[in-house]
């Protein structure tokens, strides 16, 4: 993995943790906010409860009161309980499962829904004049003149019911006219029948007393009243008070409430006496309070203050409840409900902020890291390139450029400085190695010169064979030293040379024929075109190279065998010059080391010393011309072939 990538991956891992921390932080804040809200709601509930403690009259109702649920939406009177669904649980049963009842009101009407259990429905029959000769509903109320009014609702079949105002005996109507202001629908059900009734609410003012009775008549022919089940006590004949939500309490609460919290006051029979605020809340909470949290209400009505969080459809509702006391007795409770939507919204906003900030920081850090790592990579690369450009393949200094960043105080600067010092050491060592042959030459040639001159002096006085031999040895020594220095200084010397376009074919062709003249006893032969192959070269160096290869071939060729020079031009801007001789082969293992200098693997037959320096010099010249020099045993194992591969140029 590249340095930059690694840096990015590591930093990303840590950066990803930022939003995670943010999330946890927000969660913490949320819970503390919720707790704060709980406390605030509890305090509000306490305050309201304290205010209501003085209003004991507001809760003053008897247990027979009929509770009227406030309805926000309109009710379509059709005998079906669709509209009543949300209050389904609130139906109150009377007379050992004779019927169940639910009352509701809106601003104009009072609605009544009755579910009557009756296996055997007896409908009205015109044959009977009497109004109590069929199953019917009796409705009594106190009108504004404080008069007790009696209505009978009955029908001959399913559908709209007939309503008559009746006398006290419930048998005869007063006027024989339908009471059109009261509208009801009768519908049969599996267990009996349902009746939905609507009557104007202002009839009931100001006494608000009403009673309903279900009269079950037996037998199609007999038509006897079998049972009357009523909502009021038939013995004392006092009508049930209607319990609307208390407008007094509501007006008290209005001053205390906030729009986003719902304050709900219930009496000890768990009937909601007042609701205010909280339009944004799900409306059902207060109506269905028993269902939502029975235990909560139970405990509050026992006198305990309660706070509870209710998870409802994805949102948390906090309900704080405080009992309302009349002396020692609990007469009701105040419930303050508020959902945590605000808090959640706050949390969501904060989370969004955290996300945005994190994203911002992330991209900022990412970009700066990207920039930084690219910058680092660039610097390292630059250092690498510069370092590489300072030395050539063989470790010699070719440039003396100061390395980049060496005055930086960071690690790369340090690296650069240590490279510099390392290269400096390498350079001095290379310099030392390079000067060794020269020093050696200087040190050897001076005594050799002395010996040589001594010998010359001796020779003048007396000439002997020994002196001749000694002189020869001195000459050999000189050749060795000079070839050593040639090899040592070949690179330096090559750098002074200029390359120019040279016809290599003409050069070799001429070279081989001239060499043949020089070496009359050898058989040199050139195979290839006579001219027209161009390379970028220094012709004297190429001749020097060919000399080395030719000398090598001559040294090892068997007598009377041919040494061939072959020029092949390939399509890929390349030419190969193969120089083949017949003779001893070279062990495969030693082939690669042949150009390293001072290495000779074949037994010497020539009179001149053979150090293998020739091949080293040839190799250096080939490299200088961007070429390659390869040595191999011939395929037929009859000798050795040296190949010089050079790039060609177009004419």
């Amino acid at each position: 993995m590249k340095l930059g990538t690694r840096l990015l991956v590591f930093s990303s891992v840590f950066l990803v943790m930022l939003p995670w921390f943010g999330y946890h932080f927000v969660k913490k804040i949320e819970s503390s906010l919720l707790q704060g809200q709980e406390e605030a709601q509890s305090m509000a509930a306490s305050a309201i409860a304290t205010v209501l403690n003085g209003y004991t009259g507001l809760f003053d109702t008897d247990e027979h009161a009929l509770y009227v649920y406030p309805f926000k939406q309109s009710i379509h009177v059709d005998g079906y309980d669709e509209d009543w669904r949300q209050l389904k649980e609130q139906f109150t049963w009377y007379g050992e499962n004779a019927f169940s009842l639910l009352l509701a009101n809106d601003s104009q009407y009072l609605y009544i829904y009755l579910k009557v259990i009756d296996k055997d429905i007896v409908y009205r029959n015109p044959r009977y004049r009497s109004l109590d000769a069929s199953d019917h509903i009796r409705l009594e109320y106190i009108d504004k003149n404080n008069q007790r009014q009696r209505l009978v609702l009955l029908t001959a079949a399913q559908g709209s019911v007939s309503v008559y105002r009746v006398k006290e005996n419930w048998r005869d109507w007063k006027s024989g006219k339908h009471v059109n202001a009261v509208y009801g629908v009768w519908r049969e059900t599996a267990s009996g029948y349902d009746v939905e009734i609507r009557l104007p609410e202002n009839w009931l003012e100001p006494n608000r007393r009403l009673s309903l009775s279900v009269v079950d008549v037996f037998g199609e022919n007999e038509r006897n009243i079998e049972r009357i089940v009523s909502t009021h006590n038939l013995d004392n004949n006092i009508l049930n008070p209607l319990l609307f939500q208390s407008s007094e309490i509501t007006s008290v609460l209005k001053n205390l409430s906030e729009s986003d919290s719902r304050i709900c006051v219930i009496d000890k029979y768990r009937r909601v006496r007042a609701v205010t605020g909280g339009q944004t809340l799900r409306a059902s909470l207060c109506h269905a309070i028993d269902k939502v949290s029975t235990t909560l209400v139970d405990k509050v009505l026992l006198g305990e203050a309660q706070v509870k969080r209710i998870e409802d459809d994805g949102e948390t509702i906090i309900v704080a409840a405080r009992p309302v006391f009349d002396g020692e007795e609990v007469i009701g409770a105040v419930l303050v409900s508020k959902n945590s939507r605000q808090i959640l919204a706050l949390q969501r906003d904060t989370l969004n902020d955290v996300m945005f900030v994190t994203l911002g920081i992330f991209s900022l850090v990412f970009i700066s890291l990207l920039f930084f790592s690219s910058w680092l990579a660039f610097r390292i690369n630059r250092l690498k390139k510069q370092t590489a450009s300072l030395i050539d393949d063989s470790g010699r200094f070719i440039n003396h450029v100061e390395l980049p960043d060496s005055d930086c105080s960071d690690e790369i600067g340090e690296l650069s400085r240590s490279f510099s010092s390392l290269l400096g050491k390498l350079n001095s060592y290379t310099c030392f190695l390079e000067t060794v042959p020269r020093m050696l030459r200087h040190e050897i040639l001076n005594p050799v010169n002395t010996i040589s001159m001594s010998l010359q002096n001796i020779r003048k006085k007396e000439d002997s064979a020994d002196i001749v031999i000694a002189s020869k040895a001195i000459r050999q020594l000189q050749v060795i030293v000079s070839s050593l220095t040639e090899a040592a200084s070949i690179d330096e010397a090559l750098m002074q040379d200029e390359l120019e376009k040279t016809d290599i074919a003409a050069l070799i062709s001429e070279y081989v024929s001239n060499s043949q003249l020089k070496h009359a006893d050898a058989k040199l032969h050139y195979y290839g075109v006579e001219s027209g192959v161009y390379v970028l070269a220094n012709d004297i160096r190429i001749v020097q190279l060919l000399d080395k290869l030719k000398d090598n071939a001559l040294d090892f060729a068997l007598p009377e065998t041919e040494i061939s020079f072959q020029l092949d031009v390939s399509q890929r801007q390349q030419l190969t010059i193969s120089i083949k001789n017949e003779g001893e082969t070279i062990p495969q293992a030693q082939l690669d080391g042949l150009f390293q200098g001072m290495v000779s693997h074949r037994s010497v037959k020539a009179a001149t010393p053979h150090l293998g320096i020739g091949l080293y010099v040839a190799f250096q010249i080939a490299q200088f011309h961007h070429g390659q020099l390869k040595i191999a045993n011939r395929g037929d194992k009859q000798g050795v072939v040296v190949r010089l591969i050079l790039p060609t140029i177009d004419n």
Partner: protein
Amino acid sequence: MKQSIAIVEDDAQQRRYYAEALRAQNYDVREYEDRQQAIAAFDSELPELAILDIALKSEVGGGYEICRYLKQRDASLPIVFLTSRGDELDRIYGLQLGAWDYQTKPVSLEYLIVRIESFFQIKQFASDAGNAGSNKVHNKKIGDLNINQKSMQCFWKAEEVNLTPTEFSLLVALAETDEAVSVDALIKATRQGVVEDNTINTHILHIRKKFKKIDAGFKCIKTRYGFGYQWLCE
């Protein structure tokens, strides 16, 4: 009057051999072992010929310094380098400084004596020529090339080409014949001891460069690859 020769060589033994050999030829030989000693002496009196080693004691290029000093004092003074440094670069540098000859150790004393003798002669001829105009007897003309072997002067298209004695002798060897001259023959012509082929190549390169300075189109010295060189003007 004896001709004076200065020898600057830090090795006492070798210096003694040179001196003995040259004294035997009746030269006035003055020996110095380092640059300071030599320069001090040259300040008062210049020798007529100087033989210099390049490395003198701790001074790696001491000989070059002396050569530069002498050439400043007298540009026509023959200077011979006798050194163990046989690199092409050293050789080129020495010759560029204006040395007449550059011989590598081991030195043949006999050859050294012959060279010095001929240098004195050349010097003599040159001053004679300078005094008495061109000596027509030794003039030789081959095409645009005009050489005077006595004064060792060479003219190309009537302009003088400044060649060192070694270069001059190579040019003469080439110009004397229409045939190609082998490297071996050229080595013999320079009368140097052991010489690599490349030394001749270096000299030829220099000769060509000097001619090209005068005549950019100069192409008369042909390379005969694998054999030698040929004077051939097309």
